[in-house]
C-alpha cells in the first residue's frame, strides 16, 4: 500500500466510488502519452498537406527539400500505394494522396528530419503542381449528377453523382401506419457537423528493429484495427508488427481509425532504420477530423388518437466529406436506434451519404444516432404539445418495454428509460415549469438510447470481440492482459474492478496491461461503447477461469467443495464458515503447485439472436442498450440571442455502476459535450477551407460557459453485462442536445430547426425570419 493508495478488495470493489487505478499517474504527470515518448536517434516527421479541395496532382518534385541539411527522407503517394479504410467496403484512402487530392489538408507527402522545425521548413520546399477541379462542398451539390466540367470525387464509383451510400429499410406496413394516424407531423432539421477536439493532438512513434520487427505506439482507440491496416499497407506480416496504445488524451471517436501519420511513422522507421515520431498540430487534427457528420433529416411521424406512434419515416442525408471512413455504418446508425427508445407501429428509414471535398467525417460520441435523435426528440416535443401532454409523461407512455423487440427487430433487454425520465422530471420539477416560465426562461426534456457495443465486428469474422488473460503472480499480484485502449473513459479501471471483484483481491493489487498487440488478446477497440460490456465480460470470464482452479485446490485444503469457496478481502474461505480460510496468496501458490502457471483466459462474443435477418441488419444490434433522459434549463437573452444554460440534469441507465464516480464523470462530460454541440461547436467552411481550424475560433465551452451538471445514475440489472453493467460513455450525450433545443423553444416560443443554436439563429427565430426549414421534395434516392 502506497501512502496515497486506497485499499479495497473484492465484493466491495464493484459499486465503490474508488479512485481510478490510472488516476495516480494522471495527477502526477507520470502518465506517458504517445508524444511524451522519446527514443534514441528519433526522427521527427511532418505531413505536407493539400492546399486544394479538389485537384489532380500533376507532379511532385521534392529534390530541393531533400537537400536541406537535416532532412532524412521524403515519401509520396506512390511509395505507399495500397488503399485502406476502416470498413472493408470503403478501402478508399492511401497514406499520401495518389493522382488527386480531395480536401484541403489531405496529406500529399511526408518528410522526416532530425528535428521538427527542419521537417516543417523543408515541407515548404516541396514543389507540387496541381490541376484544380471544381469542388463539391454541400450535400445538395453532391446529389447532382456531375456535368462535363466536373469530376466525381471518387471517379471509380458506379454512380453519376457523388453519393457514397444509400440505405432503404422498411419495417411493418408504413402506409397502413400512416393511414392509422390521426395526426401526421412532418418536419425537416439540420444538424451541423462538429469535431471531437480531444485535448491531446494525435501522435505516433514507430521504431523498426534490425530484425525487421516494427513497434508502433499511437494515440489510438483501436490498436487492433491499426494492426490490421498497418500490416496491409506496409506489406508486412502482422506477426512482425506490434501496436501499443499508450494512454490516450481523449478520443470521443476521433482516434478510432488508422490515419496517415501513424502509417507514415511506421513507413519511415522501416525506411530509415530509426525511430520516427509524428505529432499532429492542432490544425492538422481538424483536417484529420472523422468527426460528426452534418446531417439533414426529414422526419414524418404519424400519431394515433391515443398518442402512440403508428408510423415513422426518417430520411437522412449525410455530408460525409472526402472519404468513406466509418460512413456506411454512420449512415445505418442515423436510422437504426430511434425505435430502441419508443414503440412504433411501422418504421421506414432512408439514408444517403454523400462525398464532399471536406475532411472526412466519421464517428463522434453517439455515432450517427445523435443527429436523428436531436430531430426526433424535437419533434416529439411538438407532438406532446399538440396533444396537450406533459413531455416527460408522454415519452414514458410510448417508451419501449424491457425485454422486448423493437419494430426493426432489435432485441431489448434491461431498460431504465421510464426511471430515467421520472428522475430528471422530479429532480427539476419539470412539469411545474414547462410552458409556465417567464418569457426568456425555458426548460426542455429529451430521452435516448444507445448501444453497449456493436453486435457485429467491423470486418466479418467468427472470433470473439474481446479477449482477456488474467495471470496471478506468486506474490498475489494479478495482471490482466486485454487489448483495450483507455482514452480517459476508464477502461483500465473497469477491468481492474471486475477482476478484483471476481478474485476478492485489493484493486491496487491488480495491474492492467492493455492495448499491446504482442502481449494482449484482441479487443476490437474503444468505440461503440463496447468496452465495459465486452472486454468487461471477457476479463470476468478470465478471472473466473482462474478462480475455478483456485477453488478446486483451496476447497481441497479447506475440506469443502470448490463451490463453497468464497473470495473476498484477499482471502479464500468457506462460505458457510468464514473462519476456515486461506490467504489468496497461499491459495494461488498451492494452485500453481498443483496445476502449473496460474493464468486464465476469457473471451466475449455477442449472442447471435440480436437482430433480424435482412441486408443492413448488422448495424444497430447490441447485446444491451443504455437509456438516458435529460432536462436542461436555459435563459435566453431576447436582445442578443445568447442562450445561457443554467442547469443540466442528466440521468443514465448504465446497468450496474461498476464505479459510480466514473459513471458520473461520463455523464457530466456528456452533458458538457452535448451542450457545446447544441450551442456553439461547428465545422465551418469558407471557400473550400475549414474556416476555423484552431481552438480559439472553434468554440468549445469553457468552465465559465458550463453550468451546474447533475448526474443521476440509474441502475438496472443487466443480466448479460459484467456484474450487471452497461455502457456510460456515449449514450448520455444524445438527449442533451434536444433537451437544450426544447428548452430554447420553451423559452422563446419558437422552434429552431438547426444546430448549433447560435445567438444569430435565436434572433432569426425571434424575428420570424427563420421558421421551419423549407421542406424540399424528397430527393429520389437511386438504389444501388
Amino acid at each position: 500500500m502506497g501512502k496515497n493508495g486506497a485499499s479495497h478488495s473484492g465484493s466491495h470493489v464493484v459499486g465503490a466510488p474508488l479512485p481510478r487505478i490510472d488516476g495516480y499517474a494522471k495527477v502526477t504527470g507520470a502518465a506517458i502519452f504517445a508524444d511524451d515518448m522519446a527514443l534514441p536517434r528519433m526522427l521527427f516527421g511532418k505531413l505536407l498537406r493539400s492546399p486544394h479541395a479538389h485537384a489532380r496532382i500533376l507532379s511532385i518534385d521534392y529534390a530541393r527539400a531533400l537537400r536541406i541539411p537535416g532532412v532524412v527522407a521524403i515519401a509520396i503517394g506512390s511509395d505507399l500505394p495500397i488503399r485502406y479504410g476502416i470498413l472493408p467496403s470503403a478501402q478508399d484512402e492511401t497514406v499520401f494522396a495518389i493522382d488527386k487530392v480531395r480536401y484541403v489538408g489531405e496529406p500529399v507527402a511526408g518528410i522526416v528530419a532530425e528535428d521538427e522545425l527542419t521537417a516543417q521548413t523543408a515541407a515548404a520546399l516541396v514543389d507540387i503542381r496541381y490541376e484544380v477541379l471544381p469542388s463539391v462542398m454541400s450535400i445538395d451539390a453532391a446529389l447532382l449528377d456531375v456535368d462535363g466540367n466536373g469530376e466525381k470525387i471518387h471517379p471509380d464509383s458506379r454512380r453519376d453523382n457523388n453519393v457514397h451510400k444509400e440505405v432503404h429499410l422498411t419495417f411493418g406496413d408504413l402506409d397502413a401506419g400512416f393511414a392509422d394516424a390521426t395526426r401526421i407531423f412532418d418536419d425537416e432539421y439540420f444538424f451541423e457537423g462538429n469535431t471531437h477536439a480531444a485535448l491531446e493532438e494525435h501522435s505516433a512513434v514507430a521504431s523498426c528493429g534490425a530484425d525487421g520487427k516494427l513497434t508502433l505506439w499511437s494515440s489510438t482507440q483501436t490498436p487492433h484495427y491499426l494492426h490490421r491496416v498497418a500490416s496491409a499497407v506496409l506489406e508486412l506480416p502482422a506477426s512482425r508488427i506490434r501496436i501499443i496504445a499508450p494512454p490516450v488524451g481523449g478520443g470521443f471517436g476521433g482516434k478510432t481509425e488508422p490515419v496517415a501519420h501513424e502509417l507514415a511513422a511506421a513507413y519511415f522507421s522501416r525506411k530509415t532504420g530509426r525511430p520516427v515520431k509524428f505529432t499532429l498540430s492542432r490544425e492538422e487534427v481538424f483536417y484529420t477530423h472523422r468527426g460528426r457528420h452534418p446531417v439533414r433529416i426529414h422526419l414524418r411521424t404519424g400519431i394515433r388518437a391515443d398518442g402512440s406512434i403508428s408510423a415513422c419515416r426518417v430520411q437522412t442525408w449525410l455530408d460525409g466529406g472526402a472519404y468513406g471512413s466509418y460512413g456506411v455504418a454512420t449512415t445505418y446508425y442515423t436510422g437504426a436506434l430511434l425505435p430502441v427508445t419508443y414503440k412504433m407501429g411501422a418504421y421506414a428509414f432512408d439514408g444517403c451519404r454523400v462525398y464532399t471535398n471536406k475532411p472526412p467525417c466519421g464517428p463522434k460520441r453517439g455515432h450517427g444516432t445523435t443527429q436523428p435523435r436531436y430531430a426526433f426528440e424535437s419533434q416529439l416535443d411538438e407532438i406532446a404539445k399538440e396533444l396537450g401532454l406533459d413531455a416527460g409523461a408522454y415519452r414514458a407512455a410510448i417508451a419501449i418495454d424491457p425485454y422486448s423487440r423493437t419494430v426493426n427487430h432489435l432485441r431489448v433487454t434491461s431498460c431504465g428509460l421510464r426511471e430515467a425520465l421520472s428522475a430528471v422530471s422530479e429532480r427539476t420539477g419539470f412539469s411545474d415549469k414547462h410552458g409556465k416560465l417567464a418569457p426568456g426562461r425555458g426548460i426542455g426534456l429529451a430521452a435516448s438510447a444507445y448501444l453497449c457495443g456493436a453486435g457485429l465486428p467491423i470486418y466479418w469474422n467468427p472470433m470473439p470481440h474481446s479477449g482477456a488473460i488474467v495471470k496471478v503472480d506468486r506474490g498475489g499480484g494479478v495482471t490482466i492482459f486485454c487489448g483495450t485502449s483507455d482514452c480517459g473513459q476508464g477502461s483500465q479501471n473497469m477491468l481492474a474492478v471486475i477482476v478484483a471483484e471476481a478474485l476478492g483481491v485489493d484493486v491496487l493489487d491488480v495491474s492492467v496491461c492493455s492495448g499491446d498487440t504482442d502481449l494482449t488478446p484482441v479487443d476490437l477497440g474503444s468505440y461503440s461503447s463496447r468496452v465495459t460490456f465486452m472486454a468487461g465480460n471477457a476479463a470476468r470470464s478470465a478471472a473466473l477461469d482462474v478462480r475455478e482452479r483456485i477453488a478446486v485446490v483451496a476447497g481441497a485444503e479447506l475440506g469443502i467443495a470448490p463451490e463453497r469457496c468464497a473470495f473476498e478481502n484477499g482471502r479464500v474461505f468457506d462460505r458457510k464458515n468464514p473462519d476456515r480460510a486461506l490467504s489468496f496468496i497461499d491459495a494461488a501458490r498451492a494452485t500453481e503447485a498443483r496445476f502449473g502457471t496460474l493464468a486464465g483466459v476469457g473471451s466475449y462474443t455477442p449472442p447471435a439472436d440480436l437482430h433480424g435477418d435482412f441486408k443492413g441488419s448488422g448495424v444497430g444490434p447490441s447485446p444491451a442498450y443504455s437509456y438516458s433522459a435529460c432536462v436542461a434549463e436555459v435563459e435566453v437573452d431576447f436582445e442578443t440571442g445568447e442562450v445561457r444554460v443554467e442547469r443540466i440534469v442528466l440521468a443514465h441507465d448504465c446497468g450496474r455502476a461498476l464505479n459510480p464516480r466514473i459513471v458520473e464523470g461520463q455523464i457530466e462530460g456528456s452533458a458538457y459535450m452535448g451542450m457545446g454541440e447544441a450551442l456553439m461547436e461547428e465545422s465551418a467552411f469558407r471557400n473550400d477551407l475549414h474556416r476555423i481550424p484552431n481552438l480559439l475560433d472553434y468554440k468549445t465551452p469553457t468552465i465559465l460557459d458550463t453550468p451546474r451538471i447533475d448526474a443521476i445514475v440509474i441502475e438496472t440489472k443487466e443480466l448479460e453485462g459484467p456484474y450487471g453493467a452497461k455502457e456510460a460513455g456515449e449514450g448520455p450525450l444524445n438527449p442533451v442536445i434536444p433537451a437544450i433545443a426544447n428548452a430554447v423553444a420553451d423559452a422563446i416560443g419558437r422552434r429552431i430547426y438547426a444546430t448549433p443554436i447560435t445567438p444569430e439563429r435565436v434572433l432569426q427565430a425571434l424575428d420570424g425570419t427563420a421558421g421551419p426549414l423549407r421542406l424540399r421534395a424528397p430527393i429520389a434516392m437511386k438504389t444501388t
Partner: protein
Amino acid sequence: MLRLPAFEFQPARSVDEAVTLLGEHGDDALPVAGGTDLYANMKLGLFAPRVVVGLRSITALRSIRFDPQHGLRIGALCSLDAIVREPAVAEHYPALAQAAAMVGTPEIRNMGTIGGNLCLETRCNYFNQSAEWRKAMGYCLKRDGNLCRVALHSDTCKAINASDTAPVMHAYDARLSLVGPRGERTVNIREFYQNDGAHANVKRADEILTEIALPLPARGTRSSYRKLRLRKAFDFPLLGVAVAVATDAGGSCTQARIVLNAVGSAPLEVEAAGAILLGTHLGEEIAADAAEEVFKAGKPLENANASLLYRKRMLRVIAQRTLEDVIAPLR
C-alpha cells in the same frame, strides 16, 4: 508540435538598451513583452524577425502610480492582471479594470502587458491562420498578398483592433509615451491608432511604448466597458463598447465619450453619440438615442466569428447596455 521559427533573443535591461537593439537591427527585429500575441503569430508564420528584443527585464516599466492631482501613470510592462488588482484603477478607472479582466484568460492576463494589449496586432479570420492555410486560401493584404479578402476592392487592410483596453484608454483620454533613438514623444491615443489594419499604429519599428498616462477623470465620471463574445473566456471581442460620462452637481452631462472596438482597425469614438448625451440628464431614452448613433457609426465587416449583420445589430444593444451601466447609478 507547432514551433517558433529560429531567431536570436536579446533581452534588454533598460529602455535605452531596448531602443538601441531595435535601432541596430532595424526591420529585422521585433520587441516582445508578454509574448502572448507575438509568439502565437510567429508560430503561424506571420512574423519572422531575425532578432527578438525582450522587454520583460525592464523593471522600470512595471510600476503603476496614482496621483490625485495628475492621474494615473502605468508602465507599459504592467501585466493586465496587475492592472485588474490595482485599487486605484478599480476606484478611478473602473472600465479599465473591467476591460483588462476580460482579456483572454487568467494566464494570458498574467503574461500579457498593458503595452502589449494596446499594441495588439490587428486580427482577421484571413490573417490569424497558419502559413499553409493562408497559402490555400490565397494570401491577403496584411501579409504576403495584395488583396483584402474581407473587402475585395479596399486598398487598405480591414483587420480589426481587438484590444479590450484600447477603447477604454481612448475613453479616458490616455496619452502614450513612445521612446525611440531620437528620444521620447507623447501621443494622444486618438493619434496613436490609424484605421489601416496593416499599419495599425504610429509606433515606429525602433520605438517602444513605455508608459500610458491617464488624466484624473472629471468629478462625477462614470465609466464602463462591455464586450460581445461567444465564450466567457479566451475570446477576443466581436464588438466592444467603452463609455465614460461625467455629470455636474445638477446631474447634467458635461462630458461623454463612447468608443468602440472590433469594428475597425482602430478604436472608433462615436462623437455623435457623445454629443447627444452632453447637457442632458442621462436617462434611458437619451441612452437609446445615443445607442442609435453607435449603431449608425459602427461598420463591422465579415472578418470575425459572427456575421457582420449580427455584429451590426449588437452595436445598438451593447451600446445601450454599456450606457445603462453608467446611467443606472445616477437614478
